[in-house]
């Protein structure tokens, strides 16, 4: 037996023994485990599952063991992921720390910072949020104005962030702050601090879908030790960019991560629209648009696979990941649009017993999906990135 085969066997055995049966069922959004000081475990098994996985470092399989990670090679990780998929195991932990901050810390943080923060992330003890966008700095993120002014051993931070995901539920924030006002990109630093620090205030933003996953976050004279600065002073933009790549990749994979495949559109359509004698959907226009969408979706999935395969030779997220994000957004938006269209009047309900749970969910998801092409870099910005970085087209002078 090769080493790989042996690893696969051991992994399979371990999972068989340690992954609770209820963790092998599809999960709904409110069963997601985000960890943190006030971690919620609606299902007690999910706590056990997180503890077992993080004890092996398998919430962060390729991170080094000295920081609590699993220390696996790429090949081993592929085996682990395929074995997890084989039993339909739920992700043990959803975490911006794992997906975004961690990789950046591994690359840019001091040894001390790594030892302090990474193991907490692996174990899901601290829930992180991201302090990037500001009211005047969205697509032009580098235009941010939140100031950090040195004062003794601290920085004193003043300003406002917006679109801070789950800031009202997060324990710590990784935050971009301006430490030099005389330059743009070169005046930004990357800093970490506790959301319980005095002067931090969050206000949830109500979205058109009715939910409030984002906050406005205000900083008034927030004191943060200078030791919480990651990387060099005024060199935060490099970290920010790298982190954004990770964010884009994770957003475009988000649907896949939850493991809950949406009901195929054609089933919904057949249900609500019916079929002709020849078995074709009764609405020819809808049918044409569904098949077009399905082809786009399948083509996109195949491409994700192909690029992932190609990346096994390469390193890190490729420039094409920007393209994926906008394609993924478009495809999800189309799916949502077509779903509500197929449902007709039943897909336009806001609340009440006259609509099924699925119908209400379809309405809300349709509205929520409109944000897919905005959050984590608008599709326009992503398109610009591809034009420049991949196609080599230049900026207009």
């Amino acid at each position, binding site marked *: 037996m090769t080493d790989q085969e042996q690893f696969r066997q051991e992994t399979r055995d371990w999972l068989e023994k340690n992954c609770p049966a209820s963790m092998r069922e599809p999960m709904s959004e409110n069963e997601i485990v985000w960890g943190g000081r006030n971690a919620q475990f609606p299902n007690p098994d999910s706590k056990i599952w997180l503890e077992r996985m993080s004890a092996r470092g398998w919430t962060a399989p390729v991170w080094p063991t000295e920081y609590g990670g699993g220390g696996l090679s790429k090949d081993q990780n592929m085996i682990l992921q395929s074995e997890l998929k084989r039993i339909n195991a739920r992700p043990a932990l959803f975490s911006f720390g794992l997906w975004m901050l961690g990789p950046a810390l591994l690359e840019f943080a001091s040894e001390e910072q790594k030892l302090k923060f990474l193991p907490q992330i692996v174990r899901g003890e601290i829930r992180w949020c991201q302090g990037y*966008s500001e009211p*005047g*700095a*969205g*697509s*032009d993120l580098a*235009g941010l104005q939140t100031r950090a002014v040195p004062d003794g051993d601290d920085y004193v931070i003043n300003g406002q962030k*917006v*679109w801070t995901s789950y800031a009202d539920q997060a324990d710590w924030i990784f935050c971009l702050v301006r430490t030099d006002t005389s330059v743009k990109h070169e005046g930004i630093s990357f800093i970490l601090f506790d959301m319980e620090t005095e002067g931090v205030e969050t206000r949830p*933003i*109500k*979205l*058109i879908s*009715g939910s409030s996953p984002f906050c406005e976050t205000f900083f008034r004279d927030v004191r943060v030790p200078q030791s919480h600065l990651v990387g060099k002073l005024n060199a935060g933009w490099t970290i920010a960019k790298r982190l954004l790549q990770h964010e884009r990749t994770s957003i475009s994979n988000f649907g896949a991560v939850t493991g809950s495949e949406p009901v195929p559109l054609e089933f919904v359509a057949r249900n*609500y*629209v019916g079929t002709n004698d020849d078995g074709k959907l009764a*609405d*020819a*226009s*809808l049918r044409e648009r569904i098949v077009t969408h399905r082809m786009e979706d399948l083509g996109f999935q195949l491409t994700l696979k192909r690029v992932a395969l190609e990346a096994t030779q390469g390193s890190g997220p490729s420039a094409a990941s920007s393209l994926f994000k906008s394609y993924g957004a478009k495809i999800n938006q189309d799916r949502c649009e077509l779903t*509500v*269209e197929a*449902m*007709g*009047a*039943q*897909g*336009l*309900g*806001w*609340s*009440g017993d*006259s609509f099924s749970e699925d119908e209400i969910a379809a*309405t809300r998801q*349709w*509205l929520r999906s*409109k*944000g897919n*092409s*905005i*959050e984590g870099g*608008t*599709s*326009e910005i992503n*398109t610009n990135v591809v034009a420049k970085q991949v196609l080599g087209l230049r900026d*207009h002078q």
Partner: protein
Amino acid sequence: MAMILNEEQNMLRDSARDFVSDKGPVSAFRKIRDEENADGFDKALWTEMAELGWAGVIIPEEFGGADFGFQGLGVVLEETGRTLLPSPLVSTIVLGSSALMLGGSDEQKSTFLPAIAEGKCLLALAAEEGAHHAPYGVETTATADGDGWVLNGNKCQVLDGHVANQLIVSARTSGKGTDRDGISLFVVAADSDGVEIEALSMVDNRNASNVKFGNVRLDAGDLLGTQDKGADILDAVLDRGRIALAAEMLGAAQQVFEFTLEYLKERHQFGQPIGTFQALQHRAVKMFGELEICNSVVMEALTAVDEGRDDMPAMASFAKAKVGDAMHLISSEGVQMHGGIGMTDEHDSGLYLKRARVAEHTFGSSAWHRDRFATLSGY
């Protein structure tokens, strides 16, 4: 040839715009929504609108109306569309009074039309029975019983159903399935025994209801038009409704376009207004062009009603599909071009997005009307 407004219509537009921006801005709609106003519209404001003559805008003078025709009505609907102002204009005036004018007996007309023109009587059309528009898919039955009928069945998507005084109901008096023949229309008092009305909570917060009829007794005089030939009236009424909705959607789309264009000029990123970015410019021009086209189509469709033209049904499908698509495009672009702020409940973009979907669906989606237009054109 009525593709541009005459002086009278221009005056009506100016006064409607003043009234709406003064009394019925988007904040008025938000108030109704956030206070969960059970009526779904502002009754006092409706009284004022009726005093301005809007409730009687298409009703002949002999019944107390202003007789401005659909071109006049269109002007008003565009303005209320701009601010999403909810009112019974479509349910009561377009559908209800049209049904009475087209099919009503002299007695029905003189009973209801003056009250409608005064804003004192509200009507609703109970014609749909499923999630998708299907005017001939009528399973509700009206069974002859002595001099009258007994009505049984379920209706849905009834605009303003739960606030209406009278319901105009399509029911099968013969035929089956989706036969066009055999459908009859009835005027049914909303407070009749056996009528159950449930208000729905829709994504655009406009009034829609499910209505159940359980052995509702109707008199001979409650029949509207000719027995079994109700589809003739129903089609004409729905076409008027489609054109009216197109006018309302046009106003809404125009409004989104205007405030989005403003935002493109105001919002700075990378040291410039985002409206200097050519990709956004080209998309803005696309919206502008679609609106120019929609403007012409809606004008032509309203005119077709007033002139009683044979191509009115085709124009109705044309207008409904074209403006439905345009509002769809523009309301989506409205959110996208505003970025994050456009996704917030606090911003108006989302309200138009929601209204677009519902309006596009009501009385037949764009796809439904493209299909019908092709059929009417013989292919």
